[in-house]
């Protein structure tokens, strides 16, 4: 009797496990297959292609080992353009990361007040985030127009009483990248702001109450309570903004095409134009590989910094 009662139970457990096996495979199959085909295989292909000289138009390709890497990294003729582009990416990050993070904190603090109708303001601060970068670039190209019909030139002209001459915002080396950065900050800061705001709202009120009992002023509270509590959020924001800076492409393609004198060229711009304009997929892929290595390095640094924090706690 006991044995007959046991047998079906064991069978059903086994059957249920078998069913999960099939359901698991079937349910995961569509997405897994697509991730394999459209992410993992391309990712591996980037490495493979970087060892070849590939021309899509003629279907011609031949193996050339590390030649593409030598050309983009070490060749005195062809490597300066790539190094300049990489330098521009980091210069852009150097402008955008501190400004955008600082501004995001300031805006988040503004929105973290207990005021009626604060959601109304939040709606506007966040609005540029939903705009495609292509449209942002089109609008700002009028702001940056080099004659007096440009919004910024017109603004400076009228507040200085005509003393400031029109500036070629996007055509002056040394200024063009900063102009692109300003536009990108406007378009992107709402994103970081929302993340910081979420971080602010998780800080327990008791910490502030304790601080004010200790007679800490607003600024001291910000330094002693707010900033340390936001540490993880801010590490995340800084990392993600740095990665955004490395991905810089749309605004460059639309507004400056990498100019003037390559001062706004970026790694992605070089990589895409190598593939599209020069019909050199191998070169573009080699740049992609360098790009990926940098992204991975940054992510590893992020993990290390965050782990350190956990150990301290």
């Amino acid at each position, binding site marked *: 009797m006991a044995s007959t009662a046991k047998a079906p139970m064991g069978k059903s457990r086994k059957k249920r496990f078998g*069913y999960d*096996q099939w359901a*698991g*495979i079937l*349910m*995961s199959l569509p*997405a897994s*297959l*697509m*991730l394999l085909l*459209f*992410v*993992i295989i*391309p*990712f591996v*292909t*980037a490495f493979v292609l970087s060892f070849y000289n*590939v021309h899509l138009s003629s279907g011609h390709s031949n193996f050339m080992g590390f030649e593409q890497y030598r050309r983009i990294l070490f060749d005195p003729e062809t490597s300066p353009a790539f190094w300049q582009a990489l330098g521009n990416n980091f210069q852009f990050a150097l402008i955008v990361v501190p400004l955008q993070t600082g501004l995001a904190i300031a805006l988040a603090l*503004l929105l973290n*007040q207990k*005021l009626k109708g604060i*959601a109304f*303001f*939040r709606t*506007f*601060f*966040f609005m*540029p985030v*939903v*705009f*495609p970068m*292509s*449209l942002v670039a*089109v*609008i700002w190209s009028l*702001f940056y127009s080099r004659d007096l*019909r440009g919004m910024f030139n*017109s603004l400076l*002209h009228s507040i200085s009483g005509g003393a400031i001459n029109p500036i070629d915002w996007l055509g002056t080396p040394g200024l063009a990248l900063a102009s692109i950065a300003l536009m990108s900050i*406007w378009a992107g800061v709402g994103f970081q702001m929302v*993340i910081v*705001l*979420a971080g602010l709202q998780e800080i327990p009120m008791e910490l502030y109450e304790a601080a004010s009992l200790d007679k800490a002023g607003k600024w001291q509270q910000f330094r002693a309570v707010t900033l340390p509590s936001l540490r993880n959020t801010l590490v995340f924001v800084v990392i*993600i903004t740095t990665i955004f800076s490395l*991905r810089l*492409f*749309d605004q460059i*393609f639309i507004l400056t095409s990498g100019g003037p004198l390559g001062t706004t060229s970026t790694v*992605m711009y070089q990589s*895409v134009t190598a*593939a*599209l304009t020069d019909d050199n*997929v191998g070169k573009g*892929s080699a740049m*992609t590989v360098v*790009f*990926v290595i940098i*992204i991975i390095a940054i992510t590893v640094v*992020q*993990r290390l910094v965050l782990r350190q924090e956990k150990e301290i706690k």
Partner: protein
Amino acid sequence: MRTNSVAQIDNRQAHRRRKTRKLVKNLASYGFLSLVTLIFFAPIAYLLIGSFKPKNEVLSGLGGFIPEHLTLENYSNVFKAFDGEATGYFYKFYVNSIIVTVAIVFGGLVVNSMLAYALARLRWTGRNVILGFVVLLVILPFEAIAVPLYDLLNDYRNTLFAQYIPFVASAFSVFLFYTFFIGLSSEIQEAARIDGAGPWRVYFQILVPMSRPVFASVTILSFLAAWNSFLFPLMMVDSADVRPLPLAMTVFFQQQQKDWGTIFAFGVLLILPVMIVYLSFQRFFIQSVASSAVKG
């Protein structure tokens, strides 16, 4: 008695003073918030006002902010400027963007949530390997695979297929679903399983209805990314016939003779659906973006 009333008056005065101070402080806050709002809204106002101005008055410095001589001409010009095989048709750009976006959003909701469910709640061999890959792929930005993908999809150039198929499955969406699913209490699911419901029934009848917030978040995030997508369409599309809206606007913008009025009207029509959805669901938009960052 006397001292008491003095104290009362003092008290009332202090109360009133505190109230006034708070009012002044609030007014200052509102003033500052409004000023910042103006700065943030200025480029959007410029776009909106410019789209209704005569085409030679759009690019006019600060004058671009002044709404005068308003006309609907730019909007009719958008349809007139795109009315042939060479330029493409404006309605076609819209249709292209809608098809690509719908395929990415709905295809993505189905396949990514199913994978996440299989990873979070089912036991099967291979699960840990795939979970490991998903976690690794989350950090990989699309830019890292754009060039090789351009090579691999060479045969599908100038198709809508090439514009949506690489974006349907998304490690990031899987990750968002996964973290939500493992955060849900599994009691109801376990109970249903004991009552004999299979994994498919649990998924469709219990998990999906319980997970509206994460479905909403993924919908919003993938909708934004798909509708605004630029890099890959730029690489894959030469023909005006399959251009999505942002690419079509950029091609038009880069022409030598710029008709700013028409460009701005195009821009407004491009952002209009996003704005309608954003203004109706702005709380969800902001929550989705915030939740997308909570990881690591």
